[in-house]
């Protein structure tokens, strides 16, 4: 699904150049659930952004579902993002003046799907994350966990190949975190490839594979036995 070879990325910080990624080789197959760990400054977010086509690598190759991602113009990048990727952010990034339902149907709008069909699909995904009753609520009327579930529904709405989560539980307390992770695990069970950046060990162990980044290179890449985030276990 994802194939990355010798990926380099550096940022220009005034006169100095900051070499963030120093040759990353990474591969993820369909249906995998990979945690990307590392201390802050290890380059894990940059790595995720490049996979998410929000940022572009300086060197190296990146193939997503057989398509080489290189020198994309904005138009194609936007289309690929819409078709292949779903984003989950630490701070949810919902549009504050749109209802939960409208937020979820946003990617469908950009796919050019008609309003009725859009609403129907969006409602389906809201049901899936258990928020059908909250469809008409604004993000400000939802709790943190509910917001993140709306964001997950939005990420799923365009039926992407890969779900990219950047510290999905970073802004949540632990019991809500587990609820969200349970949902993400459920989605993975259905066969979706998931990449999840985190710095929390327990969250990482809910994935099936943990990749450790340090100073811009992968220092560890292990398969782990997945810990299920069943709610009852944490009471």
């Amino acid at each position, binding site marked *: 699904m994802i194939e990355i070879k010798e990926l380099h990325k550096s940022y220009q910080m005034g006169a100095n150049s900051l070499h963030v990624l120093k040759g990353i080789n990474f591969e993820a197959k369909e249906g995998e659930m990979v945690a990307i760990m590392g201390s802050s400054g290890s380059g894990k977010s940059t790595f995720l952004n490049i996979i998410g086509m929000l940022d572009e690598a300086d060197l190296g190759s990146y193939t997503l579902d057989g398509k080489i991602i290189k020198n994309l113009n904005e138009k194609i990048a936007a289309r690929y993002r819409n078709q292949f990727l779903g984003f989950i952010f630490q701070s949810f*990034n919902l549009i504050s003046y749109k209802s939960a339902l409208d937020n979820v149907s946003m990617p469908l709008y950009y796919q050019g799907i008609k309003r009725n069909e859009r609403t129907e699909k969006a409602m389906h995904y809201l049901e899936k994350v258990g928020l059908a009753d909250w469809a008409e609520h604004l993000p400000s009327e939802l709790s943190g966990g509910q917001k993140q579930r709306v964001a997950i529904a939005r990420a799923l709405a*365009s039926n992407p190949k890969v779900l990219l989560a950047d510290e999905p539980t970073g802004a949540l307390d632990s019991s809500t975190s587990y609820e969200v992770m349970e949902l993400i695990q459920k989605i993975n069970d259905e066969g979706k490839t998931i990449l999840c950046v985190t710095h929390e060990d327990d969250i990482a162990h809910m994935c099936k594979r943990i990749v450790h980044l340090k100073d811009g290179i992968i220092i560890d890449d292990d398969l782990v036995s997945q810990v299920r985030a069943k709610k009852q276990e944490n009471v």
Partner: protein
Amino acid sequence: MFNIERWQEIFETLSKNKLRTFLTGLSVASGIFILVILLGFSTGIQKGVKSQFEQDATNRISVWTGVTTKGYKGLNPGRLVQMKNSDHENISRKYDENLEYRTALYSIWGGIITYKNQTGNYRVEGASADQQFIENETMVAGRFINNGDVEKAEKVTVIGNQVKKDIFKEEDPIGKSIEIMGINFVVVGVYSDPGGNREETRVFIPITTAQKAFNGGDKVRSLAYTVKMSDNFDDAVALSMALSENIDKDIRTSHFVAPDDRSAVRVWNTLEEAKKIYTLLDTIRAVFWFVGIGTIIAGIVGVSNIMLIVVKERTKEIGIRKAIGALPSSIVGMILQEAIFITAIAGFSGLFLGVGLLELVSPMVNSDFIKFPQVDFNTAVTTVILLIVAGALAGFIPARRAANIKPIEALRDE
């Protein structure tokens, strides 16, 4: 642009940000409002001034004589220059091909007019048939003095509408006999004058009758002509100026008046004055447009400014939209369409407000120089369309900035 989904999106965005939308629109609406009011009043001034000129024919040339103030060719100053019938005949003959209407005038100020027991004090003017067209008179009843009256020195008179109201009240004056300074005249017509009441407090009698009845001999008080108009206004003005200069010269020569003695011979050229006023009006209109356009530019800069703030405020939102697959063109379209929509709605409300206010106030404004201010609707609509185009241009810079937002930067957590 005509995508209904996009409109729903924009309408939703706007209605969720009411205050911002309102403030953006306000600058544009007030700009258009001010322009409409200014243009309305400039039209009002134009109408007012035009109605001032309508009192008499605009292509009129008048000649008066007075007392000399300078000695010339051995003659002492203080001499009355008295025009005669022959002056009028000479001028009429000499410039025949350039003159349209012509009359010599012999007038009596403060003529006492009596009908039954009603008496009034009016200006009595001896004139020829052409006077009707030189003074722009319209007949309310009967007819004007004709050439036959003048030839035979008939004792007939045409009275002003105000004179009729004063001394005849409701009675029909035609065919009735009135006394002008003790001499009986038959009323043959009643006229009205676009100049209003003051111009309608005169009575006209044939000039020959006036000269005979009031000891005029062949004396003439003043002369009035109209110049043949050509289609080109500037040509007409030039002809009119040349004619008045020549007439001035002729009178001075035949009456031995110094060329620079202004009070002895006065030739008034309405067309030349009209041209001056029209030039002034054009200047006023240009200034109003300038001010109005300036206000609109201020409004547009306002829109551009606020849209920049909008883009800044919505950086994160735009970032999110891009992350989930919005094309740059759809972001540009969104901002641009929003700007145009606000400008258009605001522009039209400013327009209707301005036109509405003018409609309301217009009937009350009727002074000599401002009359019924109104705005040419086409001009206003043209302005609004221009405004919308300019609004699009104003929205373009913010839209480009929005399109250039990198989602990764927009989404970075502070």
